[in-house]
């Protein structure tokens, strides 16, 4: 379970998060929606400590993420993160991209990690691209590679930061299909997304961000079809 309490975060004079409270249960899919610069992506980074926080508390399975004594590298192992930019390691094949962290971080043996990589790549539909380098893959394939790479660490949580935003429209579908698959498997996901129909279909709950504040949280279907707050109505009205 992820518990976020009163989280504040500024970059210089700009306050990006102005007191965020949010709880995510195991197995839940939560989508964060809202305009650009509303703080959604920053919140994801604060959850796995890629960014520090100025005030408040983030707790993952009872561990205070931002406490100085917390082993952040260890914590991140159970929270996969995928970014808008695919960030496939360009010097490694698809297989080695996926095998790198299990081998170096978890210390598994080489043969084991290569098999693991093959398994996860097949899972996201890249079973025939094992020896391809990222430069030989399409954007959608690179993004699925990034998802497989995160899954190979057997995370309990997946943090997805606008994973389809940098894709050509015709490639968005294949990545969303992969995410649907994960949702069905019951992986806890927090996804920042602009794909409102996807959020409505896959998410259990949706949180609407505006200027560093969560204006509305609720079950995906009801929030999207019947938003209560004026800001939410305005945003959804523009985007749908």
């Amino acid at each position: 379970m992820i518990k976020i309490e009163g989280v504040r975060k500024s970059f210089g004079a700009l306050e990006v998060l102005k007191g965020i409270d949010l709880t995510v249960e195991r197995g839940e899919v939560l989508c964060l929606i809202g305009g650009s610069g509303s703080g959604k992506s920053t919140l994801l980074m604060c959850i796995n400590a890629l960014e520090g926080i100025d005030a408040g508390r983030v707790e993952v399975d009872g561990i205070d993420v931002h406490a100085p004594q917390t082993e952040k590298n260890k914590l991140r192992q159970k929270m996969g993160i995928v970014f808008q930019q695919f960030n496939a390691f360009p010097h490694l094949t698809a297989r080695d991209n996926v095998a790198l962290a299990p081998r170096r971080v978890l210390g598994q043996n080489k043969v084991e990690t290569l098999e693991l990589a093959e398994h996860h790549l097949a899972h996201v539909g890249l079973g025939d691209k094992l020896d391809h380098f990222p430069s030989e893959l399409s954007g959608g394939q690179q993004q699925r590679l990034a998802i497989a790479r995160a899954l190979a660490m057997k995370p309990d949580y997946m943090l997805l930061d606008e994973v389809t935003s940098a894709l050509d429209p015709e490639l968005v579908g294949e990545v969303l299909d992969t995410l649907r698959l994960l949702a069905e498997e019951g992986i806890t996901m927090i996804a920042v997304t602009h794909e409102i129909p996807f959020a409505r279909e896959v998410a259990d709950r949706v949180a609407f961000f505006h200027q560093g504040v969560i204006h509305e949280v609720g079950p995906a279907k009801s929030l999207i079809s019947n938003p209560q707050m004026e800001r939410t109505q305005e945003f959804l009205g523009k985007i749908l």
Partner: protein
Amino acid sequence: MNNLTLTFTANDFMLMLQGAGITFVLTIVSGFFGSLIGFIIGWGRSLGLWWLYYLLGLFIEVVRSVPLIIQFVLFNSFLAIAGYPIDPFTSGIITLSIYIAAYVAEVVKAGIDAVPPTMVKAARGLGMSYFQCFRFVVVPIGTRSVLPSWTGLMLGLMKDTSLIAVLGASPPELLRSSQIIITRIQEPLAILIGAGAFYFIMCHFITVAVQRYETSWASKGKVTA
């Protein structure tokens, strides 16, 4: 007897060959230590500690601004005055290493900066420690993007080794040995063409060696980042 003839002899050729060997060794040894020191300096500047950044930056500026020939003489004299005279070769190699390290440091910094911050975040997000991320992601990607610049530095270094002559290091390196022969036989054009050919062959050797290395990467994945 040979020293009295006014024509190019087999001994002269051997002298130039020996000079070329010295030049090559000077380049390899100071290139190695210079790259090692430069790597540490460039890495140190990437850490985000402002005082370290400016301190190392000052070192780089000084070393790059003072002519190498002055550095050779100053360092050698300094050791002598301090009471620790060492042979001109060693002092020359140390000076060359420090000199090229300043340039390598800038290349290393550029290589580290060439790795997109989100790539680093992706690696850290997988649970890698700072050093694991540096070793397995930043270094391989950065190296690929700056290897051509580094090769250029090494070729420049090879030609700069000729300045070690001001220390009177013996046996002489390639340019000095050529000058010795020219003084005797008064055929500057032919000898300098010969010396140039030696330099070319050695530079070409380094270039080809690096290119081979790069090709082995090209088949192992291009870096577009």
